[in-house]
């Protein structure tokens, strides 16, 4: 069409000129030139549009001069004037339209460039059917999407089938490892894994509520079935209420998530390793801790048997012995339970915990170490401490570490009085644990480095203990600090804020 339209326009112009000049109808035939101008809209530039308009007006005047040159009637003059006006106004409007189209095209072009070249994967989708289905459910009297989910749990997967892919950019193809648009379109239902069901319901809720944007993060499959972590944004413009053009932008965060996971795993691993190392330091006292009840059990067993085998069996003694055996077995299993918990290799769990309770458990694990170093222990554990969100094992690890450090700080024979204070308190909107020793202490200049990795003052230390402590406390949203007056002992304390999710 566009290729021939200049000729068509020229032909029409010639035809109009012929009619206008050669016939003598009492009508403004020249008005028909507006068709030429309108046709020109499709092929002429803005400047040529003006030229063509002017040309048409020129032809009108020429025709007028030829037909009515010598004695123009007032009618003919009026008709000519009407034609000129019509052509002029049409040209002006066409010019305006042309300008508008140019702006529109430019913006369209810019959009296409962005769409194609951006690093964000963009899927243009048609949710018309979904919107209609939602509308229908609303008219059926469902109050909200939860009611729908309760009644028809399969609606989410039905809705997925109703979402149509209309256009994608290259990044989208790359993100999903798809060869071309059709591959991606065909694979679409398989890209949405079962774990996305929650996300789909949330999206449906956004559609239900008429929200213009829904953003979330999820895992999807690519065309090959590999898992990818994505951040996505579903834009449902308010001016397209039928949702025939929905833009889904997707950022692939798989690499970032993987790096984060690896870092987290490494951190967990390190915490575990240092925990095991700590347990290694405690081996002797722990062995004693388990051995003691075992020895008692064996001895009670032997004693019980002997009371039974006496010529006059003493059942009272036998009963006592057996009761003691049960109590001791319980004691041994408590120790082992504590140990197993501490040495277990679980990922950190966030649960409501009582810091006083954790402190008491930790003290139980190192009690032997404390007594064998001839340290007198004082505990001031707050009874009614508010719960904090945290990982029991990790917090135990921190406390045990601080206690072991305190014990070592007092191991120097020069330390005359060996006292250890372990206290928990509520400090504003946090709970606080304090470990204070009467050991050698440290210089103020060292305080800044105490919590650095690989910083150690011990000959056989790795320098990881306090560093791990700090990272655990920080992950709980808390702070750890140390104070000392050299020669006058040291004090370590950490806080865990109330009602705050750990970052771990």
């Amino acid at each position: 069409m566009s290729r021939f339209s200049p000729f068509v326009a020229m032909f029409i112009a010639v035809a109009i000129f012929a009619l206008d000049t050669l016939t003598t109808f009492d009508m403004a035939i020249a008005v028909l030139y507006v068709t030429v101008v309108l046709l020109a809209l499709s092929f002429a530039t803005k400047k040529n549009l003006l030229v063509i308009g002017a040309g048409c007006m020129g032809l009108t005047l020429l025709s007028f001069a030829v037909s009515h040159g010598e004695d123009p009637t007032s009618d003919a003059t009026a008709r000519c004037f009407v034609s000129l006006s019509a052509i002029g106004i049409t040209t002006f409007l066409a010019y305006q339209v042309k300008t508008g189209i140019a702006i529109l095209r430019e913006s369209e072009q810019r959009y296409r460039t962005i769409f194609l070249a951006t690093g964000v994967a963009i899927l243009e989708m048609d949710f018309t059917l979904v919107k209609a289905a939602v509308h229908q459910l609303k008219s059926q009297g469902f109050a909200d999407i939860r009611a729908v989910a309760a009644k028809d749990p399969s609606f989410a997967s039905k809705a997925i089938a109703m979402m149509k892919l209309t256009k994608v950019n290259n990044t989208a193809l790359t993100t999903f490892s798809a060869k071309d648009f059709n591959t991606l379109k065909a694979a679409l239902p398989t890209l949405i894994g079962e774990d996305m069901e929650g996300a789909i319901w949330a999206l449906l809720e956004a559609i239900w509520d008429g929200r213009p944007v829904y953003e979330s993060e999820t895992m999807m499959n690519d065309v090959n079935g590999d898992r990818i972590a994505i951040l996505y944004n579903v834009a449902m413009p308010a001016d397209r209420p039928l949702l025939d053009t929905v833009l889904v932008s997707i950022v692939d965060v798989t690499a970032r998530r993987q790096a984060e996971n690896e870092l987290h795993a490494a951190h967990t691993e390190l915490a575990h390793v240092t925990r095991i190392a700590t347990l290694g330091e405690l081996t002797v006292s722990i062995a004693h801790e388990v051995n003691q009840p075992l020895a008692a059990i064996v001895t009670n067993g032997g004693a019980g048997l002997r009371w039974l085998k006496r010529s006059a069996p003493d059942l009272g003694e036998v009963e006592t012995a057996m009761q003691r055996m049960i109590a001791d077995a319980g004691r041994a299993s408590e120790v082992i339970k504590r140990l197993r918990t501490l040495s277990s290799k679980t990922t950190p769990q966030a649960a409501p915990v009582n810091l006083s309770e954790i402190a008491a458990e930790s003290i139980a694990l190192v009690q032997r170490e404390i007594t064998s170093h001839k340290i007198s222990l004082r505990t001031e554990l707050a009874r009614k401490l508010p719960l904090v969100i945290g990982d029991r094992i990790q917090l135990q690890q921190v406390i045990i570490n601080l206690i072991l450090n305190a014990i070592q700080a007092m191991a120097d024979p020069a330390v005359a009085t060996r006292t250890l204070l372990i206290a928990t308190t509520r400090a504003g909107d946090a709970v606080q644990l304090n470990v204070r020793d009467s050991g050698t202490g440290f210089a103020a200049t060292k305080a800044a480095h105490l919590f650095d990795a690989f910083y150690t003052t011990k000959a056989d230390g790795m320098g990881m203990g306090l560093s791990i402590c700090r990272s655990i406390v920080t992950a709980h949203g808390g702070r750890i600090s140390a104070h000392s007056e050299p020669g006058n002992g040291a004090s370590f304390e950490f806080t865990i804020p109330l009602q705050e999710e750990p970052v771990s």
Partner: protein
Amino acid sequence: MTGTPSPLVFVVDDDVSLREALGSLFRSVGMQVELFGSPAEFLARGPATCESCLVLDIRLPGVSGLDFQTQLAKRGNTIPIVFMTGHGDVPMSVRAMKAGALDFLMKPFRDQDMLDAVSNALALDRERRAAESELSTLRARYDSLTAREREVIALVTTGLMNKQIAGQLGVSEITVKIHRGHLMEKMGVRTLAELVKIYQMLRPERGI
């Protein structure tokens, strides 16, 4: 010796559970038992007058079992000690043995092993007490000798003849013979060999 028929076992362990288990075990075989949570409590009780032994945990709060062993030795308390040790206490055990510990048992131990160890310890204590009591009899007999008789006994046991002794003391041979007869009777011996043996036992008592 002092008329108490059953021997006495002292148990010093800070673990109340094991302490009581041991108590029950020893009582089940007819021994007397006294239980202590710390060495200080045991010391406060004072030494036993009957056949006894001590069952001691090598790791104790405050003072170690080894230090306590040394303290007892310094006080002249010779009560036989059976040590109880945990894992990883080998160097301590060696030290304890060198310091004269009678036996040591690794926890957890068989009840029979503990009873055997305690029996041995008690047997040792019995022997010591018997030896001590014999010595004290001899001491009493020696103390009943006159000054002259003590001079004679010292010279007789060095192997001198009556005539030589008489020369040294400036008395007659007959007098020496009479003193010798009296002291043999007082010391309760019949032969010179016996006298020499007894005199040897008494010598450290006399501080020579």
